[in-house]
């Protein structure tokens, strides 16, 4: 019952976001960078499975939101969750991951995306802010997943159970945050320059 209700609530939260995305009615051309980033994120997530929770997905979703707008970030996050779980296994956690990653991309767009995002002029303060955002959302993502585990399978264990779930998840979440900050630091400026060039070259719009 808890599992059912929580999944339904999360799906209900996703619906207005999806409606907003569909209302934006992006051209296929505007979707392409998002799709490519999502594909690289999924391949990276699956390839790095042996290292627990070490993955480029969150970093690339932040990039999608940062350079192509909040709906691009939302779409990228939802795609990564939906499609990578087709390989890794769907479950009641799929809507939660879609919401969490979609939110990561959406708020990256809200906070950082400007009309003409140009990585040539990123200030150090901006870079630090993006890195901080990446670390914070990685930890929040892990927290949401731990809460999902607790609500669905262990809510009877009460406060100590919740704290233990979060405590046990901590190493995994730290690994996630470390990987996100590494990938963000490696890609933010070089990929940003390339994305800016591609965008002026082909007239890709933010969504």
């Amino acid at each position, binding site marked *: 019952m808890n599992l*059912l209700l929580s999944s339904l609530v999360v799906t209900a939260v996703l619906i207005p976001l999806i409606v907003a995305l569909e209302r934006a009615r*992006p051209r296929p051309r505007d979707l392409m960078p998002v799709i490519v980033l999502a594909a*690289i994120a999924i391949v990276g997530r699956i390839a790095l499975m042996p290292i627990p929770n070490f993955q480029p997905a969150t970093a690339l979703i932040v990039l999608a939101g940062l350079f192509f707008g909040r709906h691009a970030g939302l779409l990228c996050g939802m795609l990564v969750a939906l499609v990578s779980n087709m390989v890794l296994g769907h479950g009641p956690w799929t809507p939660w991951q879609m919401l969490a990653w979609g939110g990561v991309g959406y708020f990256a767009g809200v906070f950082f995306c400007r009309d003409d995002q140009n990585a040539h002029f990123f200030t150090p303060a901006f870079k630090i802010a993006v890195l901080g955002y990446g670390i914070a959302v990685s930890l929040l993502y892990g927290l949401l997943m731990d809460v999902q585990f607790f609500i669905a399978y262990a809510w009877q*264990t009460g406060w100590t159970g919740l704290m233990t779930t979060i405590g046990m998840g901590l190493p995994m979440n730290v690994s996630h945050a470390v990987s996100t900050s590494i990938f963000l630091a490696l890609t933010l400026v070089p*990929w940003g320059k390339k994305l800016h060039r*591609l965008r002026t070259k082909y007239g890709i719009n933010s969504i």
Partner: protein
Amino acid sequence: MGQTLVQAVGNSDRNAIRISVNRVGRSAQLATRFSLLHPAVMLLFFAGVILLTLLSYHPAILGLSAGLAILNICLYMGIARLWQLLQWVIPMALVVILFNMLFNHRGATELLSIGQWTFTLESLFFGASIALMLTAIMFWFRLYSQFMTSDRFLYLFAPIVPTIALSVAMVQRWIPLTKQRFVQIRNAQKMLNPKARGVRPLTQALSSLMSWSIEDAIQTADSMQARGYSGRYGDRYEGKYENGDDTKSAVRRSSFRSYHLTMRDICMLIAFGMLIVMGTASLFITTREFGFFPVVYGTEQLSGIALFAAAVLMSFPLVLEGGQQLRWMQSVRKA
């Protein structure tokens, strides 16, 4: 000598054919009677099964669900796949059971107590039934991803959420392409500079992978727009995008596979709908009386109607395909 060589070549050819058939079987899957149903029927079937499994913690209905899911997986996907799946379902189930045992101290029947920690039989039962629910759900989701292939998914959802449906289909195509291109780039790098080590060549490879993929993707995007992909199936989309771009496509969109809602599909939709409503209502009413703490109570409250509805719904693919399979095995044995 010549003879053996010919045989060897023949055998290797036969192997090649078998391998390619297996591949086709994996991606497009050989037609079964269940896979020939309309996608909407399939979606309703899986939605109903998952709903009935999630609604209660009654062990009878969870056991029924898990058991029938296992039989379905054996029938449609083979025992090897079931074994693969079990290898990661069982540890997860054990984690859930242990976690509940360790941190839930409610319940009247004490099994063991160490200091202030008490482990009770009821929390073991409770953890076991949640683990059973998790197991059953994972089995059904595995069957779902086996049957709801991307063309069915697109067929159902493209009219409602065209952007997301299109993106899912594109990402699925781009995943193998990305892998293949990454290997190509790495090979070129190794050939040009065999001694290069460390992170730098890797980041360079990833960066060129990204720009190569996007440059290529733009062309695909233009082509898809020209072929009418941004609208519904069969529509020629002639609206304007938000930025004022004209979006008129050159041709009407055609779909790879079209499904027709036959009379049989409509009957199945109605039957499934009735079973789901029946099962949900009776589960909702009866299993409220069922609980674990302080002692397990209300086990006998489960109504026969709910069990009947769940059993009929969940064994539907078995009945649909099982007879055929049996007949096939008999004919193979005869021949």
